[in-house]
């Protein structure tokens, strides 16, 4: 009896418009995943047998190989660079410190067709070699393969590992490393025996981001002809027109990524125990001397050149050839459409992100923490899965709404919602909620609950408190959330490819379309625009990192 009264009290206490809106946001994210989970319980069709018999093993093996190789190389490259920058001082170190984040602005699919053209027989690399009378075997430059995909992913994604590992080395490891040096250990021992083991959770966090990107990729793998589970989903869907089997494949991929997601959470959980909360002294970099300092600068420089400078300069050259023919009024319209679509989705995302983050912060209980985990799960779900789930949902919704459409005189059972942009917007919301949410949550964490509590005791409810107190205090965090989310959406490819209405293009799909039609030079213009916009996001990420450091 008393328990029931208490439950009712708790329900009354917590039920308000914030909770209802938060639940609505969670439902939007949950619904697209329902058809995929249900798909597992349906009886498979004949196609499925064909897929499991001839294709699945190969897809799976390719996916695993891609993930393992990319993971290995991004960790090696990212951690080496992070250690070099954090622990040593050498010429141009301060420049490379942030410049090595810039490759994040180059979406892998753009790097993919840029490099494949640069390395082709008529591309700049072989041409230059031939001008020196060196005629290498063209096979050496065959990037259209697993090898090429690993190369591209490593160059574009290593900054995730670099960024997280560097900030760990810089902020958390100072006293341990100084202790190790005082105990008389050399640089190699300090790195392998102390720094690397300590950084393991941070590295795991970075590599998890890399793995999710690789598993969710469509652009690179399909352009390079590497068949993975993600591309297989597209193929069964558009090649065989077999949505059921595509859903089943998506379900398997989702089980895999959810497993990885849980592992990553688990690893990060441990981090809280390993890093003490007391203030850590930052690591003071040691000056490298002579040849070593030049070698360090050269190493950073060549990574920067290959991962950012070369492809961007190449795209710039191509863009200057085709700028006039590509940049027509229609192209201007395309930009406006891409921007307004991304803005719309960003606004919706930030709205729900703020609501769920504020709910979780003001009423921290198992329910709200489950809610906040749930809305951030989308980033680990590959685009192909989100796309197919959203499509299945909207086709179902159209079926339910059919009588209503008939009343409106739209004919019998037309596809209204599932032919509209609404679907793409919902997919963006599902996929990128985490980006906005994490930014808002970081802002709330910095401010704490103190001001909110003061405001509550002064007679302001949750909404007024938010508008008068919380919002002014976290507006910087909200702004960076807006920028990061907006850029993610602008450069997003697979969702836009799959869910856009007929004849609707975004900058990303246009670039990819050009590239796919062998019009690489034309693709350079939209590609450079995407890279330019993404550089803003890299700048914001860098600023956010700086603030967190203070």
């Amino acid at each position, binding site marked *: 009896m008393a328990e029931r009264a208490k439950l009712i*009290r708790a329900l009354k*206490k917590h039920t308000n418009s914030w909770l209802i809106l938060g639940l609505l946001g969670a439902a939007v994210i949950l619904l697209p995943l329902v058809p995929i989970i249900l798909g597992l319980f349906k009886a498979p069709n004949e196609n499925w047998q064909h897929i499991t018999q001839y294709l699945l093993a190969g897809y799976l093996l390719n996916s695993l190989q891609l993930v393992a190789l990319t993971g290995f190389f991004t960790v090696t490259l990212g951690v080496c660079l992070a250690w070099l920058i954090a622990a040593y001082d050498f010429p141009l170190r301060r420049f490379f410190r942030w410049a090595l984040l810039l490759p994040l602005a180059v979406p892998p699919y753009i790097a993919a067709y840029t490099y494949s053209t640069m390395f082709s027989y008529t591309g700049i690399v072989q041409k230059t070699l031939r001008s020196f009378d060196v005629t290498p075997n063209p096979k050496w430059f065959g990037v259209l393969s697993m090898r090429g995909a690993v190369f591209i992913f490593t160059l574009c994604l290593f900054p995730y590992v670099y960024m997280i590992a560097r900030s760990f080395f810089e902020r958390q490891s100072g006293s341990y490393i100084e202790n190790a040096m005082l105990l008389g250990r050399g640089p190699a021992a300090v790195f392998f025996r102390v720094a690397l083991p300590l950084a393991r959770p941070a590295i795991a966090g970075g590599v998890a981001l890399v793995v999710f990107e690789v598993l969710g990729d469509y652009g690179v793998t399909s352009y390079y002809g590497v068949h993975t589970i993600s591309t297989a989903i597209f193929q069964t869907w558009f090649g065989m027109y077999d949505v059921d089997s595509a859903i089943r494949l998506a379900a398997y991929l989702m089980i895999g990524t959810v497993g990885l997601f849980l592992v990553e959470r688990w690893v990060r959980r441990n981090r809280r125990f390993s890093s003490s909360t007391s203030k850590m002294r930052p690591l003071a970099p040691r000056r490298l001397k002579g040849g070593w300092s030049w070698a360090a600068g050269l190493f950073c420089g060549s990574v920067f050149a290959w991962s950012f400078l070369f492809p961007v300069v190449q795209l710039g050259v191509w863009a200057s050839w085709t700028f006039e023919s590509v940049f027509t009024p229609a192209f201007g319209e395309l930009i406006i459409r891409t921007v307004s679509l991304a803005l719309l989705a960003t606004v919706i995302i930030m709205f729900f992100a703020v609501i769920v983050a504020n709910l979780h912060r003001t009423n921290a209980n198992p329910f709200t923490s489950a809610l906040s985990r749930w809305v951030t799960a989308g980033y680990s779900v590959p685009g192909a899965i989100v796309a197919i789930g959203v499509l299945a949902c909207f086709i179902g919704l159209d079926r339910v709404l059919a009588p209503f459409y008939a009343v409106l005189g739209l004919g019998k059972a037309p596809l209204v919602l599932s032919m509209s942009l609404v679907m793409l917007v919902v997919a963006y919301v599902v996929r990128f909620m985490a980006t906005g949410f994490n930014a808002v949550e970081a802002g709330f964490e910095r401010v704490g609950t103190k001001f909110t*509590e*003061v*405001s509550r*005791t*002064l*007679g*302001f409810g949750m909404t007024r408190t938010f508008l008068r107190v919380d919002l002014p205090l976290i507006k910087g965090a909200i702004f960076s959330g807006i920028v990061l989310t907006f850029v993610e959406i602008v450069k997003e490819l697979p969702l836009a490819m799959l869910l856009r209405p007929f004849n609707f293009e975004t900058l990303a799909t246009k670039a990819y379309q050009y590239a796919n039609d062998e019009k690489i030079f034309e693709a350079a213009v939209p590609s450079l625009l995407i890279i330019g916009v993404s550089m803003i996001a890299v700048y914001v990420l860098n600023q956010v990192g700086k603030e967190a450091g203070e």
Partner: protein
Amino acid sequence: MSVVDVKNVSFAYAGNRVPVIQSLSFSVDERAIVGILGASGSGKSTLLRIIAGLETPCEGSITIAGRTVVDARTFVQPENRGVGMVFQDYGLFPHLTVAQNITFGLHRLPREQRQKRLAAMAELVQLEGYEGRFPHELSGGQQQRVALARALAPQPSILLMDEPFSNLDAALKQSIRQELSDILRRAKMTCLLVTHDEQDVEAICDRTLRLS
């Protein structure tokens, strides 16, 4: 007449079986200044947060000015309890001026009365002329007085103060104790004050409650 009645209140943090507060009962009379003494971890601050409505007790009931604000079936939100609170680190809104901080809780008053009340408060805590400043431009003692003025402005039925002297240095403490005592008595406030320092209680309070 008692302003606050706490009956059999118990509280445990989520996931923690051992309650911080167990079956605590007491009442505070009108215009009384009651000190709550106890070692750290004895639940002093938690008690204030429960009365303010920032935490929910697992057992017991609380009445403020004759109205039940929490029992097994009722929970009145903090904004509707008519309680003023001065937080340990003051919690002055960094984006608002002194005047805006003090008038923050007066949103239900018309502008004219709000200004009057602001003037009265500034006079009470002797901060006339500082209305346009921002919190970071004030000394620790001045910040505390702004926090006090802000909490008193809406005329709460009770003022809760959490370790009001913990952020001040020893030299300042003596004079501010006296000042606070004067302000509270001039404002005819009922006050519940948490501290770990016996001297605070001796200097200000009419009555002491010890938590163990």
